[in-house]
């Protein structure tokens, strides 16, 4: 047993005991503990096995940079892998498991990987396991994936839910350490709307992790006083457990707030996390800094920890990491660790400093504490398989081995400046502070405190206030005067990152098991760029993104290349700063909530009538209406078609896009956006219209109805309703801005029903005969009229037919859609009315040879669809010029034709390609393909529409439809695309 509880810090509530389980053993901790601190307090040191070599690992850090202490937390569907135990607040009933070990953490069979380490060096999977090639996917990759890795996902649907929200503020402050707090105070006092985000579950940042740091008052008193004032300021919002993970364009930030109350016992109704989009006029990054570890052989043994972490566990969690500690440092900062441990009454074996010149004040203090000092020191070896036993050091006095259970390492600090890089600016090397600092060129983002290179409490406070006042100036506010509390002098200074030239094999990236040898190997093999080094060795590619390893990697590469760190540079930091749950980004947009489901106004009527629905984009449309006794959908659809053709059918066509267009230039505008001439369209008339894209291909089709001189209503296909609206607005505002045209989408404002069949007029006469004259003289084919259906209810009637029968489309304001549908159904009983859905609609339009979505596929021209004669030659319109290109007018292009099987019982499907008889079925002989196929009850066989070379000239020819998906060949006869009533007799009644 190594770690143990010592002291009672105010951040720990020892009256609240929390029980938790780790690897099936029960432990307890206190409210305020992290999972890591509670484990350390129990002497648990071994918490994981490394990624590749399965080496025993313990906690390195006490924060977000933790590379080793990744645990699976939770059970069942709520199991979450790769949680940093250092960041996980302890809660009662928490269940955690170690990862990447079998059968147990203490005895891991895969530990043999460590013996074969030479095989697993940088780029090993590019070099080994290469032969035979077919083994890669089936044998090698699964093996490697099983052996290497992190935790396993739950593989069950996530029962928790996640919320999202937007926040707006004048000033976003990221980090609640001394710099962030003082900046928030200044901004809050100036009356700015402030959001202060802290990723931790306690506010205070580094202040919580150090001993008393002010001269004349305790840290706790200062924190309490400051937080009380901040909480009292009405414009300051404090968000704990909220990690700002990304900085985006225009002052937008992404943040994840973890529900503080979340535990296994929490109901799944409460959001587990909230994804916030924060829009800030200005922001201050005060995210602190991360300490760097040392490089020496076997530097990854459990018990070797960052000095700053040893202090964190001591001060914040009242926990000693071991009984006997040796401090190894290249910096003043390491001495603080030794002094703090001594002050707490813990044994410090020695302080080993890599430097020969030590500041006088540190040496003097060390003497007071009776601390042995080793200068010019270099750790050359460590022992202890599952926990550190001894450390061997060469120093001025020679080579010595020390028995100790903890080695506290300090090798300088790296500012946490990741967010400053998300918008593309590169960190700048500061040779005097031996660290990369944020570039000065930041849009609306200032840096303060250790994130900006400030070292020591006094400097951090001052830098927080300076940043806040700079920001206040930019927002035209008065700078704030705050008297900062006194802090001790002299300030601890930073020295350069220490890495001996001959380290032997030392771990650089603990999480991905990248060693100094791997970096040397990458260099030998010609990799120089830090970005290439990263990808070849996987340095910094773990879930910690190299927060403790990037500096070592680039320092070694710089030395090998004979360059300075600034010449090598850092890899680019991209969002997210920390792994975030995809669930939080998705929020409620999952399953059926992924997109809106749109229901037509009469949906409940169709439901009552037993409709089977189909998704048409966002819409749910009735597909068919099965009746009792019908055993197959085809039986239903055949009945719907036959009944409609014999008497009357009713279909909801409300989903078609409907756009109302008014203005003096409305007609000219329509004439410009449709390719067929519209100038002659009379009031009270409707015309089919075809819209091209500017590149000359067909975009959409629909109808144009002229209700009044300068008032039109057009329809679009369901699929393109939104696109056409955008297109028309574009054509108006960009191409014809001076024309007097006004447009509005009325798709959702009107319900529209198609009433089709020989009895359609009789049915409508019964329902609306009082209001409108339906005689063929008054209301012939293609007529349209707006009329009052009841006082204050304006309805529109169009005589249009998609089915080929006498047919009408009746539109009514959507609130009356339901009642109109019901009225038509009731009135229709005497006429044998059938309801029909999209299937029967499709069958009837294929029987009539009308093009629809399958033919308007973005690759067809008006000519391809047999509509070449519609295209105007005497006006300008969208697509006019490009439609005349030779390739688009080539007579050899596949053109619309009908197809019917030579043997009526033969099967074929849309998508089959067509070939002449007696040629191979290969691409060079391909003549086109079938676009739409349906069973026609009128023809008694399957019929199809398709595009085939020279189609209109080849009626009567027999070809082969080759369906390579189903391996089927069918003999088809090319016929006219219109299978039913080609003279249009039925249309006119």
């Amino acid at each position, binding site marked *: 047993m190594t770690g143990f509880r010592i002291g009672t810090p105010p951040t720990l509530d020892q009256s609240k005991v929390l029980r938790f389980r780790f690897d099936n053993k029960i432990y307890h901790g206190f409210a305020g503990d992290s999972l890591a601190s509670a484990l350390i307090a129990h002497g648990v040191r071994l918490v994981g096995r490394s990624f590749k070599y399965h080496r025993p690992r313990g906690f390195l850090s006490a924060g977000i940079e933790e590379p080793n202490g990744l645990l699976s937390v939770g059970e069942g569907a709520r199991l979450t892998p790769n949680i940093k135990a250092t960041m996980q607040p302890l809660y009662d009933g928490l269940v955690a498991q170690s990862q990447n070990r079998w059968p147990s953490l203490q005895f891991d069979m895969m530990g043999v990987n460590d013996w074969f380490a030479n095989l697993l060096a940088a780029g090993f999977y590019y070099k080994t396991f290469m032969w035979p090639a077919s083994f890669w996917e089936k044998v090698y990759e699964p093996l490697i994936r099983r052996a290497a890795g992190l935790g396993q996902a739950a593989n069950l649907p996530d029962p928790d839910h996640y919320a999202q929200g*937007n926040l707006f503020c004048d000033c976003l402050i990221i980090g609640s350490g001394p710099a962030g707090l003082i900046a928030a105070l200044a901004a809050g006092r100036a009356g700015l709307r402030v959001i202060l985000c802290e990723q931790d579950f306690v506010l205070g940042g580094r202040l919580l992790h150090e001993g008393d740091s002010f001269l004349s008052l305790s840290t706790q008193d200062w924190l309490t006083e400051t937080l009380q004032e901040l909480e009292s300021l009405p414009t300051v919002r404090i968000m704990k457990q909220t990690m700002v993970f990304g900085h*985006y*364009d*225009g*002052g*937008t930030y992404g943040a994840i707030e973890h529900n503080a109350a979340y535990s296994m016992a929490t109901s799944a109704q409460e959001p587990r996390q909230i994804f916030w*989009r924060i*829009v800030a006029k200005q922001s201050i990054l005060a995210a602190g800094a991360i300490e760097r570890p040392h490089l020496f052989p076997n530097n990854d043994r459990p018990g070797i920890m960052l000095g700053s972490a040893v202090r964190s566990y001591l001060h914040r969690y009242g926990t000693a990491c071991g009984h006997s500690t040796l401090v190894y440092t290249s910096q003043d900062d390491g001495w603080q660790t030794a002094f703090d441990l001594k002050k707490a009454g813990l044994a410090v074996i020695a302080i080993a400093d890599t430097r020969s010149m030590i500041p006088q004040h540190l040496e003097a203090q060390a003497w007071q504490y009776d601390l042995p000092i080793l200068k010019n020191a270099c750790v050359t070896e460590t022992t202890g398989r599952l926990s550190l036993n001894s450390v061997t050091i060469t120093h001025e006095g020679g080579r010595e081995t020390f028995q100790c259970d903890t080695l506290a390492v300090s090798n300088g600090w790296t500012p946490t400046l990741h967010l400053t890089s998300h*918008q*593309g600016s590169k960190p700048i090397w500061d040779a005097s502070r031996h660290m990369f600092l944020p570039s000065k060129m930041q*849009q609306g983002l200032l840096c303060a405190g250790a994130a900006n290179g400030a070292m020591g409490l006094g400097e951090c406070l001052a830098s927080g206030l300076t940043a806040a006042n700079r920001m206040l100036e930019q927002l035209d506010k008065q700078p704030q005067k705050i008297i900062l509390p006194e802090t001790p002098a002299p300030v601890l200074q930073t020295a350069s990152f220490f890495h001996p030239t001959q380290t032997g094999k030392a771990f650089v990236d603990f999480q991905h098991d990248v060693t100094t040898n791997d970096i040397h190997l990458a260099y030998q093999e010609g990799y120089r760029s830090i970005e290439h080094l990263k990808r070849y060795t996987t340095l910094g590619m773990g879930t910690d993104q190299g927060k403790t390893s990037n500096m070592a990697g680039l320092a070694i590469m710089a030395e090998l290349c004979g360059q300075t760190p600034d010449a090598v540079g850092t890899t680019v930091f991209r969002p997210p700063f920390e792994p975030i749950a995809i669930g939080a980004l998705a929020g409620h947009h999952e399953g059926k909530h992924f997109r809106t489901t749109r229901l037509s106004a009469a949906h409940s009527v169709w439901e009552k009538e037993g409709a089977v629905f189909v998704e048409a984009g966002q819409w749910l449309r009735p597909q068919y209406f099965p009746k009792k006794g019908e055993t197959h959908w085809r039986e239903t659809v055949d009945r719907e078609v036959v009944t409609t053709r014999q008497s009357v059918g009713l279909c909801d066509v409300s989903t078609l896009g409907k756009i109302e267009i008014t203005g003096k230039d409305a007609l000219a505008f329509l004439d410009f956006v449709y390719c067929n001439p519209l100038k002659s369209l009379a009031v009270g008339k409707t015309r089919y219209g075809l819209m091209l894209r*500017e*590149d000359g291909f067909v975009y959409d089709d629909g109808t144009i109805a002229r209700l009044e001189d300068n008032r039109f209503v057009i329809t679009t296909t369901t699929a393109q309703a939104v696109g056409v609206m*955008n297109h028309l*607005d*574009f054509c*108006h*505002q*960009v*191409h014809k*801005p001076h024309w007097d045209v006004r447009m509005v989408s009325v798709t959702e404002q009107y319900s529209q029903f198609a009433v089709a069949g020989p009895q359609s007029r009789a049915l409508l006469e019964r329902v609306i005969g009082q209001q409108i004259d339906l005689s063929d003289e008054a209301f012939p084919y293609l007529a349209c009229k707006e009329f009052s259906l009841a006082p204050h209810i304006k309805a529109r009637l169009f005589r249009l037919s998609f089915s080929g029968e006498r047919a009408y489309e009746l539109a009514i304001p959507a609130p009356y859609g339901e009642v109109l549908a019901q009225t038509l159904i009731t009135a229709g009983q005497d006429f044998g009315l059938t309801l029909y859905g999209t299937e029967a609609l499709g069958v009837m339009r294929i029987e009539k040879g009308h093009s629809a979505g399958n033919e308007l596929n973005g690759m067809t021209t008006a000519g391809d669809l047999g509509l070449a004669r519609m295209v105007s030659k005497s006006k300008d319109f969208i697509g006019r*010029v*490009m439609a005349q290109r030779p390739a688009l007018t080539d007579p050899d292009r596949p053109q619309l034709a009908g197809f019917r099987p030579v043997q009526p019982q033969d099967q074929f499907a849309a998508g089959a390609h067509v070939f002449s008889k007696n040629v191979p079925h290969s691409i060079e002989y391909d003549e086109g393909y079938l676009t739409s196929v349906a069973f026609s009850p009128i023809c008694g066989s399957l019929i199809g529409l398709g595009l085939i070379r020279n189609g209109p000239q080849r009626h009567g020819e027999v070809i082969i439809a080759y369906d390579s998906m189903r391996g089927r060949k069918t003999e088809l006869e090319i016929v006219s695309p219109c299978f039913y009533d080609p003279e249009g007799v039925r249309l006119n009644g």
Partner: protein
Amino acid sequence: MRLTCPYCGPRDSREFTYKGDATRIRPADDDKMFDYVYVRDNPKGLHQDYWLHQPCRNWLVVERNTATHEVTSVTAAAQREAKP
């Protein structure tokens, strides 16, 4: 990302739909139509794009720096000066 609609003020990018190069104007001359439809520059620096602000249905010309994403101006397409 945020764009400042001249009618609605600064709004979230999710309210906008992108269309493409706004430096091209539909030509009166048929011979120039091919360039208008297909030929595009890919400049580093200032560039203009069309964006539709869905809620207010205005097509906008957004001038931005393709290297820094800085937006330098947003104007309604319909308010642009007369075309060649």
